[in-house]
């Protein structure tokens, strides 16, 4: 028998790979099931208890989210605002449109922790050490990290120096360099971060070994999972000079200082989310503590309405932290290796994928084939390897 029939069959319906977006969506569903499905080795009774516990946890979480929203509602008037000139921000509204929120972690401004991070005189103006764009498009939440060592504009300058005169410079740079229109701006003072971690009773991270950073002051005893308090957590996510003990030698564990740190930050935020959900699900009062610690540390653009803040809180607390699609803008080192520039055309493709409108849950068969959409890249960060809760 010839294979002409098989050849025709293969030719008639050629293979085409799924888009990155479809892959990312499927992976998110799979990861969500890691926590939703009870252990299969256990008996049915256990499974049922887990199912009941899961329902109870959902209800508790809903109560907690409600408590958080009420707490936010009562305190929202105390959130500091910064005026951003007309035309700098896009018009997207949280809850109505897909929005891009520029989130910036900034140095403590009052020198409340000078031993660890220097006094304002030493560190100069506040710097944006951590920058990412959070995209909220219906239930889909993505985060695109921007390395602080990225050189932008002509003449070139470090992107975090565009922040020296306030958010406008940074928002303009994000639009000019990345082509992302920022709809809202949120700045989190590191002090608030420390307090929020403490309010959760610490957050667990996975350490590559016995580790230290003599500049940020971090010391970790050994490899594996470690629960960090707020100050340690800040040292961990800000460390650019992490060293790990190998044998009797301290060796450089972040050869790509900025990018390694971003990866730690992405992992950390996921763990933070998992921890926050577990903690406030158990103890709605803790939710109010978290809100109390973060609210004074926030500065938001003056156009962000109270309804939008509440919508943002709901989205963040209701999302599955493991479904967060965290990515980093593709970059490449400059010739001297000291800084980073955008890696084109990969960076432009990543931005297009980041901005793509989330596909509906059940795409119509007769709709456009999924391959014509640019698609979000596969998340770069695995879920935290340490058990939480």
């Amino acid at each position, binding site marked *: *028998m*010839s294979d*002409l*029939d*098989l*050849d*025709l*069959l*293969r*030719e*008639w*319906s050629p*293979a*085409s*790979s*799924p888009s990155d977006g*479809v*892959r990312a*969506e*499927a*992976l998110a*569903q*799979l*990861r969500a*099931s*890691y*926590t939703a*499905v009870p*252990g*299969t*080795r256990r008996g049915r009774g256990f499974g049922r208890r887990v199912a009941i516990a899961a329902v109870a946890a959902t209800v508790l979480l809903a109560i907690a989210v409600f408590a958080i929203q009420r707490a936010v509602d009562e305190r929202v008037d105390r959130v500091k605002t910064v005026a951003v000139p007309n035309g700098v921000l896009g018009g997207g509204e949280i809850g109505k449109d897909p929005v891009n929120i520029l989130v910036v972690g900034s140095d403590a401004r009052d020198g409340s922790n000078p031993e660890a991070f220097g006094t304002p005189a030493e560190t100069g103006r506040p710097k944006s050490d951590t920058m990412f764009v959070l995209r909220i498009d219906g239930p889909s939440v993505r985060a695109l990290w921007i390395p602080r060592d990225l050189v932008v504009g002509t003449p070139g300058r470090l992107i975090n120096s565009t922040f020296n005169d306030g958010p406008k410079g940074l928002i303009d740079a994000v639009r000019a360099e990345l082509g992302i229109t920022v709809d809202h701006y949120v700045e989190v003072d590191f002090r608030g971060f420390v307090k929020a971690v403490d309010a959760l009773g610490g957050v667990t991270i996975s350490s590559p070994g016995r580790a230290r950073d003599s500049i940020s002051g971090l010391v970790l005893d050994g490899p594996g999972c470690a629960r960090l308090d707020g100050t340690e957590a800040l040292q961990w996510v800000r460390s650019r000079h992490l060293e790990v003990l190998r044998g009797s030698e301290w060796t450089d564990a972040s050869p790509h200082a900025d990018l390694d740190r971003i990866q730690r930050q992405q992992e950390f935020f996921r763990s933070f989310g998992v921890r926050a959900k577990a903690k406030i699900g158990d103890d709605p009062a803790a939710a109010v503590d978290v809100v109390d610690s973060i609210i004074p540390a926030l500065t938001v653009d003056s156009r962000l309405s109270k309804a939008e803040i509440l919508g943002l809180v709901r989205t963040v607390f209701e999302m599955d932290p493991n479904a967060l699609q965290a990515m980093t803008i593709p970059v490449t080192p400059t010739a001297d290796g000291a800084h980073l520039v955008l890696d084109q055309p990969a960076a432009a493709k990543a931005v297009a994928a980041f901005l793509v409108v989330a*596909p509906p849950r*059940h*795409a*119509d*068969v007769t*709709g456009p*084939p*999924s*391959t014509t959409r640019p698609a979000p890249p596969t998340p770069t960060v*695995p*879920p935290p*390897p340490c058990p939480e809760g």
Partner: protein
Amino acid sequence: MGSAGGDHDGRVIAASIAEPDRFTEIFERHFDAIHTYAARRLGPGPADDVGATVFVEAFSGRARFDTDRPDARPWLYGIATNLVRRHRRAESRRLRAYARSEPARDGEPIDIAPRLDAEAMGPRLAASLSALADRDRDALLLFAWAGLSYDDIATATDVPVGTVRSRIHRARQQLRADLEITDAVRSME
């Protein structure tokens, strides 16, 4: 089918019992192939659904996987095949739509290369596939589109390999009759 430098599928799945995150490796190794197969059978929309569901179901049933097996593909394609069955109405709608899409050139034997002819033969191919028994169609398409061996198809569909052989043979005979393919034609190329 262990990927370079990694454990084979069975060992990864065994490890994923205690560490669910490890299952992501299985997804990364095989998602594209499974999705591609589902898309060929059902079209892109339902394939997104089936592709994602295969791995969620595989994950929840991972304790039943024989972890001595180095290759998870037959198992995953088996799950996919069951899910495709649930979409059988979508599949037959799709095939019937293709079958109607343009008049088949009745009576003309195939005398040019498949590349040129697959499109022209599309409606007849679709009509023929749609008329096959489900089990025969599953076996044929696991062979032709998923590229599984007879042994793998036997594992995927949980039947003896002899049954697979006869299902594929029957399906191909039918297809060739419907397409009026003869080996004489082949020899003239």
